């Protein structure tokens, strides 16, 4: 069977299949997170970290619900209130992790210039390249959501159903937990990529790259900035997105579909905006990559910088080393993003 699967994997499966396979394998080849070509190690480490945290958290929550269960004065509503609060914290955490990773991978969500050139002259249309990249991103995102939310959803369902007063189905809790956590992740992911899609559709090609980097930095800073506030988030406010998914959980557990409305809308609207923007802009995006304007001549202020540098450092070798490091930091995209985050922070 293994040999059969290997042979199936080695076979050619049409353009779409091959491109998705290619982009999937390339997704983790990023010098920021792994040694090139060793994405499997990163994926396994990430999975192990999530499982370890989930097991530790499960032990803590088991003690908490055991204490609630054994309290003689404890009521059913007190128990449910505790479950809701804990679930809300999980949802916020899952959404924050999704937001952080999506903003970090912001530039990898669309095909790159390298993709355009490396796949040039092959019988592959830009639409197929974009669709395959989107397919690969969706597969990675699905795997990420299952990895991030699967284990906490199972363990939390098991603990809650075990100690909950009355007859409670573990499967019902499992479905509700998974839907609420995964729903939060889906909302955040599509909302962020929809922002990128809107920028791509509305902005002029030469302003897109610059604006996109600034927006990425602003979003990243905003997410990191809100992390310390996680314990004090609103618990019932209607405009606070995690509350929508907590209501989705209630809708499944209590069988009241009306409560799920906001969650369903928040998942479908950004996804529809993103898909629309993607379809409208893929051709324009490729043109933007291929026909980018050449670099601008240095401004007068850079001449002033050179004079100041001359005054500060007399040795031309020192000047050269300083100028090289400065320009590398200023011109590399990842350094520019980090600088923007620091500035915004």
């Amino acid at each position, binding site marked *: 069977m293994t040999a059969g699967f290997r042979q199936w994997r080695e076979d050619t499966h*049409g*353009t779409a299949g091959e491109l998705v396979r*290619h982009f999937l394998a390339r997704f983790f*080849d990023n010098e920021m997170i792994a040694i090139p*070509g060793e994405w499997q190690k990163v994926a396994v480490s990430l999975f192990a970290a999530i499982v370890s945290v989930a097991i530790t958290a499960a032990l803590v929550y088991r003690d908490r619900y055991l204490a609630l269960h054994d309290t003689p004065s404890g009521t059913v509503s007190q128990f449910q209130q505790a479950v809701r609060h804990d679930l809300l914290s999980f949802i916020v955490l899952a959404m924050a992790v999704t937001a952080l990773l999506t903003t970090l991978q912001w530039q990898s969500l669309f095909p790159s210039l390298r993709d*355009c*050139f490396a796949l*040039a*002259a092959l019988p592959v249309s830009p639409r197929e390249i974009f669709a395959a990249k989107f397919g690969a991103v969706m597969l990675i995102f699905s795997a990420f959501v299952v990895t991030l939310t699967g284990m906490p959803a199972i363990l939390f369902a098991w603990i809650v159903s075990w100690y909950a007063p009355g007859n409670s189905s573990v499967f019902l809790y499992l479905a509700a937990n998974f839907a609420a956590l995964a729903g939060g992740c889906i909302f955040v992911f599509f909302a962020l990529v929809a922002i990128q899609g809107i920028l791509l559709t509305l902005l002029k090609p030469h302003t897109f790259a610059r604006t996109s980097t600034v927006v990425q930095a602003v979003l990243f800073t905003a997410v990191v900035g809100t992390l310390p506030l996680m314990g004090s988030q609103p618990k019932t406010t209607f405009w606070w997105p995690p509350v929508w998914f907590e209501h989705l959980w209630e809708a499944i557990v209590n069988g009241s579909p009306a409560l799920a409305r906001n969650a369903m809308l928040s998942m479908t609207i950004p996804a529809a905006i993103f898909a629309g923007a993607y379809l409208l802009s893929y051709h324009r995006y490729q043109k933007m990559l291929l026909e980018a304007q050449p670099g601008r001549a240095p401004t007068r202020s850079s001449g002033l910088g050179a004079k100041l540098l001359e005054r500060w450092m007399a040795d031309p070798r020192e000047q050269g080393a300083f100028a090289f490091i400065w320009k590398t930091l200023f011109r590399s995209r990842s350094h520019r993003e980090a600088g923007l985050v620091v500035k915004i922070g």
Partner: protein
Amino acid sequence: MLEVRQLTKLYNGVPAVDRVSFSIKPGEILGYLGPNGAGKSTTVKMLIGLLEPTSGHIEFHGQEIRRDLKAYQRRIGYVPEEPHLYPHLSGREYLQLVGRLRGIERCTLEPKMDELLRLIGLWEDRHSPLAGYSKGMRQKVLLMASLLHDPELLILDEPFSGLDVNASMILRGLLDSLAARGKMVLYSSHVLEVVEKVCNTVLILRKGHVVAHDSVAHLRELMEKTSLEGVFAQLTQPEDTNAVARRILDVVSA
């Protein structure tokens, strides 16, 4: 036959290629020449379907290529000037990717790929990442990738760049044999010695315009020059090259 008529590409209103016309018949190797920035690579990018022309027509066997770009791309092979490769892929993996995207079945692709890797001397390095390849090795991989599907039209942008003497001789022989088999070749370069030996006809481009389009022998005769280099210099370099060389020396020794 490949026929290009009045091909124009404007970047922000500035013409990079301006009303260029030529044709390549089966068995013909056209040398596409010009100094840096003349518009060679832009033309090549339009010919492979990467860039959309601002105006003009590219027809392959009488059919506008944009009507069914994928069908046209199935019949062409392309070696780019800059090797834009995925550095984390090995040479073999890259050929595998190209072969698969060209729809070649595994049973055909695998032995073909391995044989080609052996023939061009990359067998030992077939599993090394492309990031570790020299320029010549990458060029060899790109050449093999362009030939995997036995294309009718081969578009080569500086194909000899980085190749050693042995590999260059193999490529020269290969181009002759491909032409003898009725394949069409567009050979874009500014290495005139090779063009002179390999091409039947040449087209010289200057600032996006065609300044000459004829056989090498006829051009030499017409311009009363003994070599293609002389013809090229007369058509594309209005400034005094010796004076520029002297000025560079003055600046260096200042």
